[in-house]
């Protein structure tokens, strides 16, 4: 049994091991209420990571996800009054459109994705500041409860956020496993040149991956805005790092091609356990960045497929 044979199983082994260790040290940790609360807490991050999975799966990266979510919290807060429930559609379309823009710039204008998404993130940040007038915004509590209250309620003592997360996971899983787009994404992730040679419209597939990422980042922002009942241009800062960490520790490498949305679900749970255990061990919330930065390096080093990188730039 070599490392390569257990590598695909590492994510869930890590998750079980972490849960066991933390469970032994902290009696409260394994109580169902605690586990449910912990899982519900992480849902906006999960939705963002779910979108990022598609982009990382094709070997690209989306650094605009956090700015996108920031911008959407502002849009949701500003337009809830006039649009009511339709604001959700506006958010999804805005996310899809800006994601598509990143994809266009990457594939048609040949700008590497980490630069194109950084730039689109800058555009989103400007939009957010312009719309918000550089202030924190608050939703009208009554209107929020009437329109989006269902998002943060509970059904049979299960938080609705978890049900939303599950529904999105199933849709994403369907797209990944049962649609031509999913197969095309796999082909592009496994080898872009081969996919092009097979007659696949690679540019279109990649643009759609960025658009999906943008849309899910927008939904993450919307849910976050509803939870906090407001928005601001920097409110979701701190999402990007754990979201990328979640995708990578889940087992979707930066080089793409393997892994997928189920892996990301496991990865997000790993992040959630690490987070709550850090809180339990008294590690300050601001220190989490440092831990996640180190976890990120370890996760990339373990998962990346070096055969795909001719030179490591």
């Amino acid at each position: 049994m070599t490392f390569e044979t257990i590598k695909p199983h590492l994510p869930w082994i890590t998750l079980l091991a972490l849960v066991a260790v933390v469970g032994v040290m902290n009696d409260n940790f394994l109580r169902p209420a605690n586990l449910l609360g912990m899982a519900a807490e992480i849902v906006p991050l999960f939705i963002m990571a779910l979108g990022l999975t598609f982009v990382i799966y094709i070997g690209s990266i989306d650094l605009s996800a956090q700015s996108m979510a920031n911008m959407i919290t502002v849009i949701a807060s500003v337009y809830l009054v006039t649009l009511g429930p339709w604001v959700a559609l506006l958010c999804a379309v805005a996310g899809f459109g800006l994601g598509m823009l990143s994809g266009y710039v990457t594939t048609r204008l040949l700008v590497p994705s980490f630069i194109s998404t950084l730039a689109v993130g800058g555009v989103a940040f400007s939009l957010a500041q312009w719309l918000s007038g550089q202030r924190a915004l608050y939703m009208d509590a009554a209107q929020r409860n009437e329109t989006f209250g269902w998002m943060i309620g509970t059904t049979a003592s299960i938080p609705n956020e978890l049900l939303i997360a599950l529904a999105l996971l199933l849709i994403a899983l369907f797209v990944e496993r049962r649609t031509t787009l999913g197969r095309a994404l796999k082909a592009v992730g496994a080898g872009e040149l081969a996919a092009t040679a097979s007659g696949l419209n690679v540019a279109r597939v990649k643009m759609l991956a960025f658009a999906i990422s943008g849309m899910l980042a927008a939904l993450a922002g919307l849910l976050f805005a509803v939870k906090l009942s407001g928005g601001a241009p920097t409110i979701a800062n701190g999402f990007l790092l754990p979201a990328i960490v979640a995708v990578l520790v889940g087992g979707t490498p930066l080089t793409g091609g393997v892994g997928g949305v189920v892996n990301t679900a496991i990865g997000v749970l790993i992040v959630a356990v690490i987070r709550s255990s850090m809180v339990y061990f008294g590690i300050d919330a601001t220190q989490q960045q440092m831990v996640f930065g180190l976890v990120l390096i370890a996760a990339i080093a373990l998962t990346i497929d070096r055969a795909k990188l001719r030179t490591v730039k």
Partner: protein
Amino acid sequence: MSTSASDTAAQGRVAMQQTRAFRRPSRETLIRWAPLLVLIALVVVFTAINPAFLSLRNFGRIAIASTPALMVAIGVTFIIVMGSIDLSMEGTIAVCACVFAYFFLSWGGTLLSTAWVAIPLTLLLGAVLGLLNGLVHVLLRIPSFMASLAMGFVGIGLAILITRGEKFLIEDEVFRGLVTYRVLGFPIMVYLALAALVVAWFIQSYTRLGRNFYAVGGGEELAHASGLDVRRVRVMGFMLAGVFYALAALFAVGRLGVAESVSGANFMFVSITSVVVGGVALWGGIGGVWNALVGVLIVNVINNGMVVIGLPDFLQDGVLGFLVIVAVVLSTDRRSVSFVK
């Protein structure tokens, strides 16, 4: 008959190519001079809209704002010339600024005492952080953009650990003289930054290390085949960049008189934008520290000019994002790139 016809056609083509070359400067020339032309055009436009833009006072303001950014841009230029990228500057600057302020304050709090030791110490620290960055990238064989992004997050966390969320205030008049003491209208730190630029130019053009950066950026496999220790050059590049980030940290603290965990905030976006807009190709091998200077000036002239002509400052990130895309598109030789990630 058929040969002479094709000869004539060939001659015609050559003639056409010659006239085209005469009418239009070559792609390389255009890319080389475009950033400078853009800078001049921006100055002309802003001056036309508001003549107050073209004053020594305002240029002093632009120069002060540009100084820390120029140091970061020079550092990252070395990395981009190698074809890599470094996104760790926000963390490195934050750690350097906080460590500097901590020791500066605890060793006397004024440049005239032993506290000056904090300055070389900070430069050394920058080199060590850059070294770590390079080692993570090279030894673990992780793409540099991700290795450095992660190390940047670690750096910011470290800075929070050092400051515990507090701010360090540096009120020493001698150290703040960097920005308050002016010669010919510009503060001393602007001259120091220009001196650092000349040093960087010397390293780039007249040292073996500097030439090796271009060898790696121009074609890593060829450089390796020629017997160059590419991994060593990469690590050295990140170390050198770290020293310049440390300089940026010193100037940033000197400029504001404050060191805190967010001292490095926004330097990543601005410096990468500057370098790329200045004409350093992301693919490596093209451009240098003078491009970094022009790029930093373009970005800061835009930032300053937008305020001077009365546009809201929140448009800046959007405008810069747009600019960086245009710059990358213009500098990409589309024939040589088959696909990008």
